């Protein structure tokens, strides 16, 4: 396969802290390997997308006030998204996107807003401003098969509970809950995280994991991605890790 098709949902409403940059990064890293990459946008009011025709579904984060509007819209496609997920579409979900795939979102009035329910975690709005999770974060992951420390910027008040398979362990920062232990959610074809920045900027391994997954999705013989010189990204990450660990 030499073409990756991405469905970027709600780009106009969910684009915090450079989240749309993730798309620029994936296209760049595909382009450098001669892999074609096509990104379609979907938002409220667009015609119904054919979820089965995509390799990646991407949703970023946004203001909490948009959440209800988006979940009302997204829930119309529950069956199609679940089917695409079961057929192995890669789901890359940041912040709001992460929350939207859980069971529900308990708002500040204690009311449960049903979410897509694809995964069995759920999110509770935190009203105490002091418990807001804001700042740079470093986490330790194993998703590449090796220990890998990655960094991002988190800004959320929602507390996500009941995550059975997190993306990583928090080294410095909050993660899924205030002063929490774990960050994000991971499955072979799902990376969900609170990390903005954008998330992929300093963590080229995540982009390559996603691209590699898509390239090999329908291939019996796994192909290796050609290496890219990531010196700038890795220096950038190391500086942030050093700064966070010396805090």
């Amino acid at each position, binding site marked *: 396969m030499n073409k990756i098709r991405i469905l970027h949902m709600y780009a106009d409403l969910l684009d915090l802290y450079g989240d749309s940059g993730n798309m*620029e*990064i994936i296209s760049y890293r595909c382009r450098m390997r001669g892999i074609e990459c096509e990104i379609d946008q979907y938002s409220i009011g667009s015609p119904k997308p054919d979820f089965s025709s995509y390799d990646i579904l991407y949703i970023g984060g946004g203001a*909490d006030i948009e959440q209800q509007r988006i979940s009302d819209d997204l829930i119309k496609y529950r069956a199609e998204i679940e089917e695409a997920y079961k057929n192995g579409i890669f789901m890359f979900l940041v912040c709001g996107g992460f929350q939207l795939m859980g069971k529900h979102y308990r708002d500040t009035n204690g009311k449960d807003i049903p979410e897509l329910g694809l995964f069995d975690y759920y999110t509770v709005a935190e009203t105490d401003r002091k418990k807001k999770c804001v700042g740079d974060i470093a986490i330790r992951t194993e998703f590449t098969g090796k220990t890998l420390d990655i960094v991002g910027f988190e800004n959320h008040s929602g507390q996500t509970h009941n995550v059975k398979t997190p993306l990583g362990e928090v080294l410095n920062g909050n993660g899924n809950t205030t002063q929490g232990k774990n960050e994000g959610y991971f499955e072979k074809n799902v990376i969900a995280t609170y990390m903005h*920045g954008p998330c992929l*900027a300093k963590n080229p391994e995540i982009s390559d994991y996603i691209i590699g997954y898509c390239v090999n999705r329908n291939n019996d013989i796994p192909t290796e991605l050609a290496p890219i010189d990531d010196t700038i990204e890795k220096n950038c990450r190391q500086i942030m890790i050093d700064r966070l660990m010396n805090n």
Partner: protein
Amino acid sequence: MNTILILIGKIIVAVLRLFKRNAGNLPGIVLWHLTRGKCCKMFKINCPIIAITGTNGKSSVTSCIAQLFEQNGKKIIINREGNNLDTGFCSLLLRYCTLGGKVDADYVVFETDESYVPVIYSQLKLDTLVVLNFFRDQLDRNGEMETLIQKINGFCKSFEGNLILNGDDPNTARLGRANPNNKNVKYFHAKPYAFATDTIFEASEGRFCPFCGETLEYDYYQYSHIGKFICKKCGFGNHEPYITAENIDLEKSVFTADGHEYSPKINSIYNIYNMTAVAATAKLYDIPQKVTHNVISNHIINNGRMETFMLGDRKTTLNLAKNPVGANMTLRVMNEMQTDKELLFVLNDKLADGIDVSWIWDINFSEFDRVHKVVTSGIRAYDIAVRIKYAGYPADKIIVCPDLDEAVAELAKTEGRKFVIANYTAVAPTRSALIKYAENHGGKNE
């Protein structure tokens, strides 16, 4: 009671002066506590107050409006040091008022932080509010811009003074509908310039009509979401301009407004909008045409805002960018210039900058026209390098130099017209590094 409070304030100002310290915000902060947050209410201002607010361009426009009155022989009070909160206003007035709180001036011109418009002008009678634009700011990314506009809108609902609004910014123009009884709403507008586009080029907000939710349609975009827009459903955007900038020619650096030709020294579409706001204010206060012409044509800024330096024989323009719009502005000016160029981008993430730097991903780096080298510097030198790399600029032409002096030397060593972008806390050190290099290599700060 007022007299005692003012006396306390004046004593603090005097003591700070004695120690040769700039009074800054401190007297205001003390009085703010003593008055339970109503520190502006103590003053009796009988002259017109003109407030300037908006995300970008406040300092320039405030300074020009002050000059309109000054050059017309009036006595004015202005906050020059960007002290634009209620406590800053209070500290400033303390220096000029009598013990009874009476302020002696012909006009008070006050650059006002967006969120403090309702706070200050619920305590003091405002004559004119000039609103330049609203852009999402790096500190303001949780739907807070909407909250901010709502606050000012709330103030405008009962405001009957003059409202000078950017008619080409839907976020700003909507304030004109806040009080249907206000007959003093005036919009400034600009006809398309050579680089206006049919489709949106830079990240923006305000795509939808704030009154009916319909997608706004544009005849043209000047930059970001600024342009001639209309809501086909409810007619939002059909306002008559009070003043229009036209025949905009940035190559010759001229434009006309109300039949008068101006030749500003700062040559960008952003400055055209700012100067149109100035011209609108001049028209409102019947400033003689000669004065207006003089102010608009001679306006320059020497604080890292489109400031020019000579690095040896290489001309260099430094510009502050606190947000994507500010950075896009320099990139636009750079790309529009038909010559070989090089760019230095200095990025810090100190508290005053906003601890998050992801706003750089909202900058449009997709076009680099004849830009042969990019140097990056500052605390977050690598972050901006990563950003520019992923925009498609060749990675081998990006040079990361966290040390500023090294970065300036790297920039200066090759040919080409130089552009420097620095964010908030990076501007002052960058300016110093440029001046230092110029001094050691025979250039000058123009």
